[in-house]
């Protein structure tokens, strides 16, 4: 009898292990497939010509994605410029000022914001933000600034929830000590709490960047997708993700491989960002 129970326990354990490992397997498979499809073109055309090439015309043999790499970073930094102050302020309010009831109202609302599909953000951007930019700032409205505004809002939930966790986890004794020294509430926040939650806040910014750089649907709808490096905030631009989604439907042969190469570059960028967020910064929190 005991044997059977033990066997059953063991069986359950191994099934769970198998399931747990399967998610790792998926990651591994995605990795292998993207590399298998994307790397041949790097060998054929050359790493330099793809990463630093200025011209993207895959049906004519040009596979340069440098303008898109720059555009992806511009969009991400722009989104951060808008999203970081907003998100951090919200997190500070939630952790330091808000009463229990306000917090109970705001927290789910922010989680809801995270759940809104990106196509809805894109749609709202096209209907409201693009015409606003066109009428008051000029240009076609499909521009860097419109994209940054929408992405800035989209990364808010990430920034708020992770910064909030970092701020809340600052020990009570820090606050009490600061108050005992005669510091006001804002002085405490500014001089004590934010510095001690710094690594968590930075991690939230970097994860927000990861979200912004990976966003596709909303960006295609708003960015205008022109192939040039934008020279002003009113110029249209194309990101790496946008390039893949835009052209996949018709791509064959080398064109298709070119899109996979775009994917490889994107994957490397996102891996670096995640690495920084997870190991470079979070480890410091643990200490």
């Amino acid at each position, binding site marked *: 009898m005991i044997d059977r129970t033990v066997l059953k326990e063991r069986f359950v354990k191994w099934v769970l292990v198998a399931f747990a490992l399967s998610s790792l397997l998926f990651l591994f498979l995605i990795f292998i497939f993207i590399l298998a499809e994307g790397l041949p073109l790097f060998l054929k055309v050359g790493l330099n010509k793809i990463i630093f090439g200025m011209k993207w015309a895959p049906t004519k043999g040009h596979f340069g994605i440098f303008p898109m790499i720059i555009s992806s970073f511009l969009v991400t930094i722009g989104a951060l410029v808008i999203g970081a102050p907003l998100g951090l302020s919200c997190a500070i309010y939630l952790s330091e000022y808000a009463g229990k009831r306000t917090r109970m109202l705001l927290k789910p609302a922010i989680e809801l914001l995270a759940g809104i599909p990106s196509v809805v953000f894109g749609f709202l951007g096209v209907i409201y933000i693009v015409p606003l930019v066109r009428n008051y700032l000029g240009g*076609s409205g499909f521009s860097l600034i419109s994209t940054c505004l929408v992405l800035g809002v989209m990364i808010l939930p990430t920034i708020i929830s992770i910064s909030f966790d970092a701020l809340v986890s600052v020990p009570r004794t820090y606050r009490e000590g600061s108050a005992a020294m005669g510091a006001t509430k804002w002085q405490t926040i500014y001089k004590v709490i934010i510095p001690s939650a710094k690594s968590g806040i930075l991690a939230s910014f970097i994860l927000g960047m990861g979200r912004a750089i990976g966003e596709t649907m909303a960006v295609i709808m708003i960015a205008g997708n022109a192939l040039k490096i934008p020279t002003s905030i009113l110029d*249209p631009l194309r990101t790496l993700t946008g390039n893949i989604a835009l052209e996949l439907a018709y791509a064959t042969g080398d064109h*298709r491989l070119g899109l996979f190469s775009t994917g490889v570059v994107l994957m490397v960028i996102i891996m670096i960002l995640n690495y920084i967020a997870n190991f470079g910064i979070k480890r410091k929190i643990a200490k």
Partner: protein
Amino acid sequence: MNFRHWVILLPLIAALLSCSGASGDKPGKKHTITIAGSTSVMPFTEKLAEHFMVDHKNFVIDVQGGGSTAGIQAVINNTVQIGMSSRQLKDDEKRLNTITICYDGIAVVVHPDNPVGEMDLDRIRQIFSGHISNWRQLGWVDRRIDAVSREEGSGTRGAFEGLVMKDKEIDDGTMVQDSNGSVKEVVATDPYAIGYISMGLVDKKVKPIAIAGVKPSIKTIKSGRYKLVRPFLYVTNGELDPRSRRFVDYVLSKEGQKILRNEGLVGFYD
């Protein structure tokens, strides 16, 4: 045949097998025709297939996208009976049979409030190649022209490049949208935009430009005066089997052509 081809073909083969599997339930009763290719032709083929299957209950017509090139490849490899193409065949594809099912005009469109109503092909070429970038150069306000194009690989873009751009390239600063519908939406909302779309989609929201004095319409295309026209083709490898032939005959019949005409395309009986 290398790995890359298989990645494209396997889903097609799988789809084909699953279809023949379904028809295998009642042997000898259902006949499956698989059609794949251009996404510009696909919606019209789907519509024709729906109408055809109402009257021909023993036929199952499976219509898939993938783009003109993928469709032609699938025909060459015999994974589909009929390929759809919205561009002419290239030299190495010339050994296939083509059946022109109808013609589609490409309309160059602007916002209805735009007073510019006529251009010649040279002008349009200069706009899309970035040599003319301000509406003032065309006798309107001092405002940048927001040109909108389609993405690389699109059949409409391919046709536009062949008919209008010729040896010139579309400027990198040109905006890009990924469907006829999105291009139309941009032009309909941005007063300073110019784009090109399939003629069937032109309505009151956008204004078609008269090219050298000729507005795009079924009439001007038929008479050959409007030049931005591309054929919609069915591509087959050798002679079609008699039963697939029945579908093609239906498409070319008065009834089929009427359906295409109602969709804004130019058929043979107009």
